């Protein structure tokens, strides 16, 4: 497993560079928006990756509530953290695209607002994990994650339920996309998914190590209450 990480790291780096080349050079220029449309190759894959990570967080949280396994709790924490990073990318790149295309940075459209609410829910989840020292924190966080996950389909389908300014979805939305653009989009999604997986893996190892160290500190405090504990 230790050898797999650097190999996957190099492969992911190559894939990300290739995806960047495809997005900036190979993909055709859109007729009305021009080069600004290429923001879509980072914005949409980041959104899909964030949704998948929030789904992983949901599954891990349900598993934790049922089986109380620490590994499920770690997976839930890690996927929420990395999901928030990708959701932040979505919330930042969206307005950068909207300014030249819509003429405004932000509008309180249902898709945009629900994405912001989703981000706030998972930031609250991370704040709860970070600042609560109660033994019940993983359980409370898991319950919050289950409720937060309900927001994900709402964000995704808000385009169908409400009249919004946001463009229709690439797949399943009834619109059409140039096959070359779809190809570049899927390559970028694959690259960002591999990147997210590697980041989650390293963050999982870090969290597990942190818990082992905390456990060792607790043991040291028990053995030598005056000197060795934190």
């Amino acid at each position, binding site marked *: 497993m230790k050898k797999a990480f650097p190999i996957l790291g190099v492969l992911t780096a190559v894939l990300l560079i290739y995806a*960047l080349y495809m997005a900036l050079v190979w993909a055709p220029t859109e007729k009305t*928006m*021009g*080069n*600004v449309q*290429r*923001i879509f190759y*980072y*914005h949409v894959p*980041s959104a899909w990756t964030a949704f998948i990570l929030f789904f992983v967080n949901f599954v891990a949280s349900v598993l934790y509530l049922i089986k109380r396994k620490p590994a499920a709790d770690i997976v839930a924490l890690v996927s929420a953290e*990395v999901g928030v*990073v990708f959701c*932040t*990318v979505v919330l*930042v*790149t969206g307005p*950068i*695209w909207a*300014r*030249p295309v819509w003429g405004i940075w932000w509008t309180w459209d249902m898709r945009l607002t629900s994405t912001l609410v989703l981000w706030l829910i998972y930031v609250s989840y991370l704040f709860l994990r970070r600042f609560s020292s109660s033994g019940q924190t993983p359980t409370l966080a898991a319950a919050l994650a289950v409720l937060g996950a309900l927001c994900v389909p709402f964000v995704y389908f808000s385009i169908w339920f409400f009249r919004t300014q946001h463009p229709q979805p690439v797949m399943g939305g009834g619109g059409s996309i140039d096959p070359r653009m779809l190809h570049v989009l899927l390559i970028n999604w694959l690259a960002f998914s591999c*990147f997210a997986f590697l*980041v989650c893996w*390293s*963050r999982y190892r*870090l969290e597990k*190590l*942190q818990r082992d*160290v905390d456990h*060792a*500190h607790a*043991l*040291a405090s028990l*053995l*030598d209450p005056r*000197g*060795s504990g934190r």
Partner: protein
Amino acid sequence: MSGNGYLFAAYAVTWIIHIAYLGTIVRRYSRLQREIEELKKPGVKS
């Protein structure tokens, strides 16, 4: 700002966010390594 400027800004900010997050992981890992070294010092039982 031109269309290319917005495109550059979006791509740059994406990587700034990811690199900043990776930086926090590296910093936390370094702090943890120091804690492990402290625990390994003689006289600290674990």
